[in-house]
């Protein structure tokens, strides 16, 4: 290996480590409650219920996975499906994590950004580089009807543009609830599943509007139902809101929400 290549490799590894490990190093020191103040609180109760409008506020949230998107115009149906079908970590479609669980992922490198940076810039004309990272699941209650993914990322000092957010929660029903629809508003592209069945593919440069897309009618079964969503953004804000609605469009609220 030529000396120049060695230097380049060293620079890359240092930079990559800075990009992916910087937040991890800080993470140990971060007071999550303080870092996410105004948007989320750590879960402290055994269960939650939907808010008065039916929005689900309790979520297990995985720290963002880097996936550079320099513009929101890229989110076609195909792009969304392909990039949200990549296996980033084992069991990503089935896992019901616990607070603090770690996940090892291989993800695309992008230069670190912060609040003073402009849009994320993927290296032009270069093959993507991949790095390994360890990400943490957090059990959180949103302070709002929506889940402000962007603030989850910034609060934990993670990449916030060009990233993928995995979120999962458990819907506990005392009896079957038939003919309900999953209703999601999503700022940006997303896929959503209930009990492993994909219900929504949300493509395009979307804004978050309440109930902007709903699923076909489904049945929430007696017992545990797993609601899973994955959201991918480019530059700008990212957030989602989710609830179940009945055939008349009214919110469904007769269930509890837990993290496992």
């Amino acid at each position, binding site marked *: 290996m030529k000396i120049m290549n060695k230097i380049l490799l060293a620079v890359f590894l240092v930079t990559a480590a800075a990009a992916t490990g910087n937040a991890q190093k800080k993470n140990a020191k971060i007071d999550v409650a303080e870092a996410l103040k105004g948007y989320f609180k750590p879960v402290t109760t055994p269960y939650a219920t939907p808010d008065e409008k039916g929005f689900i506020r309790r979520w297990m949230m995985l720290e963002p996975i880097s996936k550079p998107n320099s513009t929101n115009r890229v989110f076609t149906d195909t792009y969304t499906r392909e990039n949200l079908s990549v296996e980033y970590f084992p069991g990503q479609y089935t896992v019901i994590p616990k607070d603090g669980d770690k996940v090892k992922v291989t993800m695309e490198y992008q230069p670190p950004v912060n609040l003073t940076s402009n849009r994320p810039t993927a290296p032009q004309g270069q093959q993507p580089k991949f790095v390994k990272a360890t990400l943490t699941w957090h059990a959180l209650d949103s302070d709002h009807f929506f889940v*402000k993914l962007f*603030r989850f990322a910034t609060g934990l000092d993670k990449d916030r543009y060009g990233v993928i957010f995995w979120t999962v929660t458990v819907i506990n029903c005392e009896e079957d609830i038939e003919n309900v629809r999953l209703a999601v508003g999503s700022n940006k592209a997303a896929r959503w599943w209930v009990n492993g069945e994909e219900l929504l593919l949300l493509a395009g440069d979307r804004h978050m*509007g*309440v109930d902007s897309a709903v699923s076909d009618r489904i049945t929430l079964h007696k017992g545990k139902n797993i609601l899973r969503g994955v959201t991918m953004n480019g530059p*700008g*804000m990212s957030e989602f*809101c989710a609830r179940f609605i009945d055939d008349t469009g009214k919110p469904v609220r007769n269930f509890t929400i837990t993290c496992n």
Partner: protein
Amino acid sequence: MRNRIMATAIAAMMTIAASAQIGSPYIHDPSTVVECDGKYYTFGTGGGGLISEDGWNWHSGGVRPGGGVAPDAIKIGDRYLVVYSTGGVQGVRYGSHVYAMWNKTLDPESPDFGYTDPIDIAGSNGYEDCDGIDPGLMMGPDGRLWLVYGTYFGYLRVVELDPATARAIGDPVNVALSCEAGEMMYKDGWYYLLATHGTCCSGVNSTYEIIVGRSKYPTGPYYDNLGRDMIHGGGRLLLASEPRRIGAGHFGRFIVGDGIEKFSFHFEGDLDRSGRSVLAIRPLMWKDGWPVAGKPFENGEYSIVSERRGYSLELAVNNVPMNTGARGVSRNADGPVVALEDQKLSDVIGTWPEGNINLRIGPELFRPHQAWVITEVPEAGGYIGGAYCKITLAGTNRTLTATADREITTVPEFTGAPEQLWRIDQLTDGTYRIMPKLVPGTDQELVLISVADSTPSLGVFDPDSDNSKWNLNKH
């Protein structure tokens, strides 16, 4: 070949003229069009702006210092207030400021022209859920001045301004989520918040669209037609795209007069103009308390039907019966059913007198003496949002003309005289006002009216009277 190229070029120009402002209407994020001393002005991102003598033909020349993005302008008393915004202040993305400055005139050639120093009136610190750019101004019916600002990064906010200084009064209020290009307007007890959803700044790949909600209060909450709060992402669509013009955004209301309103905005990409961002002006209509975007006027063959009676403007000639088909009540029930031709011009034109032929209004039968071709005349200039048109009887050069005795007639040939040119404005209720560019012998603005069920004339426009309103039914 050269002639063919010329013909194609002329046809292309005609196509553009039929549905877009002419001249060089190239601008992004235009401010609300403001009239100043008989000229029209709009300012855009980056500084500068457009000027128009007539509201139709636009060219560069507006002067706005300060750079930045997405200005807005409003006339208050005898001064003009111009606001604009700058982002990325001190290197902090989404750290933005809205600045305000005053001018006695918008005409840069005027000796009175000169902006005051800009003052910082609103903004965002870069760490909150707001990006304080894209300011929009509204003077309420009570003389209170309001500013809306913000982008997709969090909330749109409304704050009251002192109309004497433009400085903020009180604290801003969040009114909408995931919107930008905000603007407000008031009508009949409702405050309306106009904004955009969709992708900006991507030319013909933009998905910008203008949406609206309304509230009883300037600080909201603003609900859409389904009762969705705009702070929950709601919004009723006003306008997205038109054929060959993509991505509407940066609404600005322009009241021409009672019953006639327009709105200015930009299309992010005009396919007839290299995909450039262009100024557009369309009729603003109202239906059930909601603003509705009118369509650009299209050249074509129309019936001109009175709102008063529902009758059609026609030549005062014999109504020649169609000499074919079933007659009476027997209906020839046993014969084959066939499609009959319309009555043709050639069937009847020989029965018409030569020279001028007067007009009347009669039952709509879709006959040749009731068919009018309305065509823009690009070289005749225009008015706010449209070009002057000629109105000729289909298949002929016979031209609708205003006369010195304040009546109308038709003359055999179009000469381009101003009394043969017509301004066609779509009214807020969707009907049309039809007005000659000039009535010989008077400076008074007169319009085509139904003075009786069967009698057209010229008279003063009354927005509350169906006598002044017409429908253009395309054939």
